[in-house]
């Protein structure tokens, strides 16, 4: 029993710790950086469940991100007015600024926190349903054909959002005709003025949950079934592994977390724009997964941290130009020299306890 609860508890404590410490001593720079890094981790680890664990190839992850982000955006923007008349009271957990700007009257736990949690989960579920739909073709398509379908999905999502109506100004929102208005996703202008709830606490809570899910999955019967499909689908079927069910399951789980990442993006930046979440964004996540290692959770985390923070470290302006060139070269060389990515399937801890008997 303790084993089961210990890790989630740690996740909760770490999330509170990161939020509390960084918020306490930072002027905003680190809050921003750590948010971006955290979201990248969620995206990479969740994509790894499909691309790394089951060996299917999805390059439409940004599509799920968009769906989650826009749903969360509209729930926060329109929903706040509809359900609460105004932005619901956030507590300590949803405070997105450095703490010295905090209103001293702020409560520990506001109704807004609960609201935001519900929003995140809805965004995840919404994306998960989309994941189910995208996962279905994986029953019939293999490898690069499936990849093209996922690209198609990402593009369709982007185009549909871009062609949506303009955002309805808050002043015109009221409960009476509110429902009719909730179609405006801001077209190509992006969806703006989203109430900010996505604090470091929420980001790292979900980072923790994502990583924990991926690891628990990998070291369980179900996760091993995923891996066996990646290795050899025909042999996996011959071992009684129902490959179709597991492949769809992987898509659904992966999309769920991408949707949550979308909610966190929208609510931490206050804006989300589908145009920026096009094919290139999906590719960037793929690059992270491939570099980290197809199937390695810790590898994906490391790659996400490094590839997100490296450009920042190396002087944004001059490096930005060469960043993607470097990515591209690294991608090509890794594929030629280390076909399974830098970490391969192994985890960081495997490297240390290689010869220490059988692991559980």
């Amino acid at each position, binding site marked *: *029993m303790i*084993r*089961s609860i210990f*890790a989630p508890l740690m996740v909760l404590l770490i999330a509170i710790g990161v939020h509390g410490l960084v918020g306490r001593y930072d002027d905003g720079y680190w809050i921003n950086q750590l948010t971006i890094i955290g979201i990248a981790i969620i995206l990479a680890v969740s994509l790894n469940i499909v691309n790394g664990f089951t060996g299917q190839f999805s390059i439409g992850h940004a599509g799920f991100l968009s769906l989650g982000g826009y749903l969360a955006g509209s729930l926060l923007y329109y929903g706040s007015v509809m359900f609460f008349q105004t932005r619901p009271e956030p507590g300590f957990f949803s405070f997105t600024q450095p703490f010295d700007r905090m209103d001293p009257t702020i409560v520990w736990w506001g109704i807004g926190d609960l609201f935001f949690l519900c929003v995140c989960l809805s965004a995840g579920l919404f994306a998960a349903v989309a994941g189910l739909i995208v996962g279905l073709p994986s029953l019939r398509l293999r490898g690069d054909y499936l990849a093209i379908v996922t690209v198609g999905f990402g593009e369709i999502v982007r185009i549909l959002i871009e062609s949506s109506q303009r955002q309805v100004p808050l002043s015109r929102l009221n409960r009476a005709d509110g429902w009719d208005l909730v179609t405006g996703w801001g077209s190509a202008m992006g969806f703006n003025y989203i109430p900010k709830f996505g604090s470091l606490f929420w980001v790292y809570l979900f980072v923790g949950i994502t990583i924990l*899910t991926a690891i*628990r*999955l990998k070291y*369980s*019967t*179900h*996760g*091993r*079934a995923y*891996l*066996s499909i990646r*290795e*050899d689908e*025909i*042999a*996996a*079927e*011959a*071992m*009684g*592994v*129902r*490959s179709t069910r597991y492949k769809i*399951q992987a898509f659904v789980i992966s999309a769920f977390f991408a949707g949550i990442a979308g909610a966190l993006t929208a609510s931490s930046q206050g804006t989300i724009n589908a145009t920026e979440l096009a094919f290139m964004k999906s590719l960037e996540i793929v690059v992270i997964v491939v570099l980290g290692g197809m*199937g390695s959770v810790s590898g994906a985390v490391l790659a996400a941290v490094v590839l997100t923070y490296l450009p920042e470290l190396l002087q944004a302006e001059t490096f930005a130009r060469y960043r993607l060139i470097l990515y591209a070269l690294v991608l090509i060389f890794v594929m030629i020299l280390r076909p*399974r990515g830098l970490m*391969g*399937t192994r985890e960081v801890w495997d490297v240390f306890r*290689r*010869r220490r*008997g*059988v*692991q*559980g």
Partner: protein
Amino acid sequence: MTAAKLEVQNVTKIFGGLTAVRDFSIVVETGQLQGLIGPNGAGKTTCFNLLTGVYRPDAGKILLNGKRIDGRRPSSITSSGIARTFQNIRLFRDLTVLDNVRVACHLRARHTLVGALLRLPNHYRDEAHIRAHSIRLLERFGLLDRSEELAGNLPYGDQRRLEIARALATDPKILLLDEPAAGMNPAEKIALKELIRQLLKDFPVGILLIEHDMDVVMDLCDRITVLDYGQIIATGKPEEIQCDEKVIEAYLGCPAHSVEEAVQKDLERGTDV
């Protein structure tokens, strides 16, 4: 442990106009060791693929303990009790030896995905059970000290044995072995023969074996079925098979002077030219 019976009745498979297997029938029961032999391209592996659901038969029935299993998905057939190995080894190369066996044990797990993610008690119970079972199997096959190695890094003979161990981990009632001795050296072959004999004593299975190495087949099998051009040309005890005219002809061919006769026979059969 109740005895199981696999009945194959007149199964036929046609690939683009070419009949790969015609009217294939066989019965395998628990405790039996049957051989399936025939020259290259006779349709032996196709038979295995039909029995395990990789291909769907165009005609005929496959019954396991009286229940029809033809037309089902491979995973469903495996869970009903038929396991196999592959001619060209298909291990999960990037998984450890232990994990290869554990994947095959997954049918024993009763807990759901949610149980695994929340690490509910039944997850731990199932995992411990699976692990113990896998380790017992590996020990049985002499692979325990290699359990943490990647399957792809094992020596060839070990890979062949691991495939058998993995197939057994699904708790099969009927085990299909596709050329387990292929590529082995004579010493390994002798060890393999001993292993298979022992399996039959220790596990409640019936074995159907495809093998090219006649030493292995003749030594091991109770009964042998011979395929040629997708058709059964003989069945019987090893001694009978070795003396069967048709079998000798299928394997050695006939001398040029007897071709005329064969042509005559052939015209009566009306084979494709």
